[in-house]
């Protein structure tokens, strides 16, 4: 196991603990699944061979993929009627879960590349410069994806507001 990578990863986790969990929470909707996703991402990264230049960007990306896998697996289990998911249903009535569903619905209206910038900005608390570095994109592209996404959501909100 690469001890330098392990050390960098632990430092990253320590400094970004809250942002990472919040980011993962607003992807999965469940705190414990968010923790699972972060762990999955760590395990995957620690078993990689070769250097990782942009560890933070790669890490968030891996967490995002892990969240998607977890949500898919959960949906599959739900359709299979696994009793254990009753517990998950019970968690769905708290304020966070309701908020999560509302936000997820809003973000599902826009392309993933735009919603990802918005998630990183609002839930991982990253600046646009950070996001540009993490996603390896020009700063202007990050800002325009943010504005396009926000504008599209604004348009879809307008009829409801009126």
């Amino acid at each position, binding site marked *: 196991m690469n001890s330098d990578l392990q*050390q960098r990863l*632990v430092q990253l986790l320590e400094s970004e603990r809250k942002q990472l969990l919040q980011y993962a929470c607003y992807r999965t909707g469940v705190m414990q699944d968010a923790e699972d996703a972060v762990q999955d991402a760590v395990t995957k990264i*620690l078993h990689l061979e070769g250097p990782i230049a942009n560890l933070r960007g790669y890490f968030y990306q891996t967490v995002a993929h892990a969240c998607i896998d977890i949500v898919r697996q959960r949906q599959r289990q739900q359709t299979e009627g696994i009793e254990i998911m009753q*517990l998950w249903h019970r968690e769905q009535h708290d304020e966070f879960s309701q908020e999560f569903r509302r*936000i997820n619905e809003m973000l599902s209206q826009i392309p993933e590349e735009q919603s990802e910038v918005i998630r990183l900005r609002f839930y991982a608390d990253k600046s646009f410069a950070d996001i540009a570095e993490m996603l390896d994109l020009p700063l202007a592209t990050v800002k325009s994806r943010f504005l396009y996404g926000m504008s599209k959501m604004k348009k879809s909100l307008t009829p409801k507001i009126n």
Partner: protein
Amino acid sequence: MNCNEFKNQLADLFDQEISAKTWAEMKEHMATCPDCRAEYEALKEVADDLLPKHSPVQEKQIEKTPVEAPQIDLRPRRRWMNIAASVALFAVGLVLGSNHFFSESAQAAASPFSFEQAIQSVRNVGSYLLQLQVRTLPDENYAHFDPHADFMDVTMQKQTLNDHDYWRVEKKEGRTIVCDSREQYMWVPGKMYLKGGPQANFLENFTLFLEPTRLLNMQQMALQLHKDIQSTTQVTDSTITVTTSFEVDGTELSAIFNNTSSTKVVTIQNTCSMPDGLLRSLHVWIDWHGEKVEIIRSRDIQYNVAIDRDSLLLLPAEADWIDLTQGIAPLKDDMRLALLSQETPVNAAQRILQALISGQTDEATEALHYYKDVLPTLVKMFEGCKVSDFTVRREKSYAGVFVFYTLTHPDGKTETCHVALRNDNQQHLWLLDGGI
């Protein structure tokens, strides 16, 4: 600013890094242009809808594991069981602060002390008073320790209210730093009065002692990452004392002890009261040329004490503050600007230190802007010295960079020192910001 310029910069209004100047210009434009204002307000409404109002992270932190544990076992938790023995599990477990990771560890279950419990105990305290004795000098910065100096009193007080931190760190009759949750003020009576923004980081890594959670976390991390670490536990009826001894490299302490170059091993003794698990006493020793020297010891640690906000934030009267947030006047010499704006932090540090060593401070007028009042002292301090072995370190908590270097004194003695440089100004010039 016209409408096109406003639209080009509209996203900046939703960034966490917008300059005060841009913000003022955009606000001014919105005051006169209803269309642009409406566009911003519509997007802000979307942003308000998206911003989290319920934090699952915070809710999780205050949950009690014993109640939750059986539920966790029922859930389809599958993947990380496969790697239970790996370091990865520990690494994540300690960082996430998830107690159930530790409940599955025989090593943790056998120990009468858990850093996790100690961290949880101090996490939600509203106020904190720490009286330390530190081997340092009254006017020096807080990252400076001197194993030969006598102990001097350092008082640290912190109050947290609605997620805002107010604190005061004071060396008796010496360097004092006050944070009113936004601005930071640092002064040495009669010598220096600096005012900085939220990122000023005047306290440098000594901030570890202002946040006991970080101090405990750091030891916990060291324990998990280094198998050969020495740790002893002593238990009495009312206290548990844990002493850890570890190499500072790779921990947050390495930045604190950078001026004591021979320091490789640090020993920290933490005493917690039972059953509340609160940290009550702290001692720190460093390995100094083969000798174990105590350099920090606590006299008193109190939690949730009544702290008078006015006294906490009291500033010296009639101080002439140098405002670091104001920046310097733009450099008009194009050739010099072209030269300086291409400098790396190491180039800049070399130039600044050479200017001080040679006494030709004109070579670094811009970079020494905040130190212009103390230049003769600095020149005298560096007279006859040599500098070498420059390395750069960046830390997330600081907007600039730290450049470490070896300082060779005229008598041949060497020590590792650092300067803090930042270039978040209009022309991206590297300015000396601390450490000297």
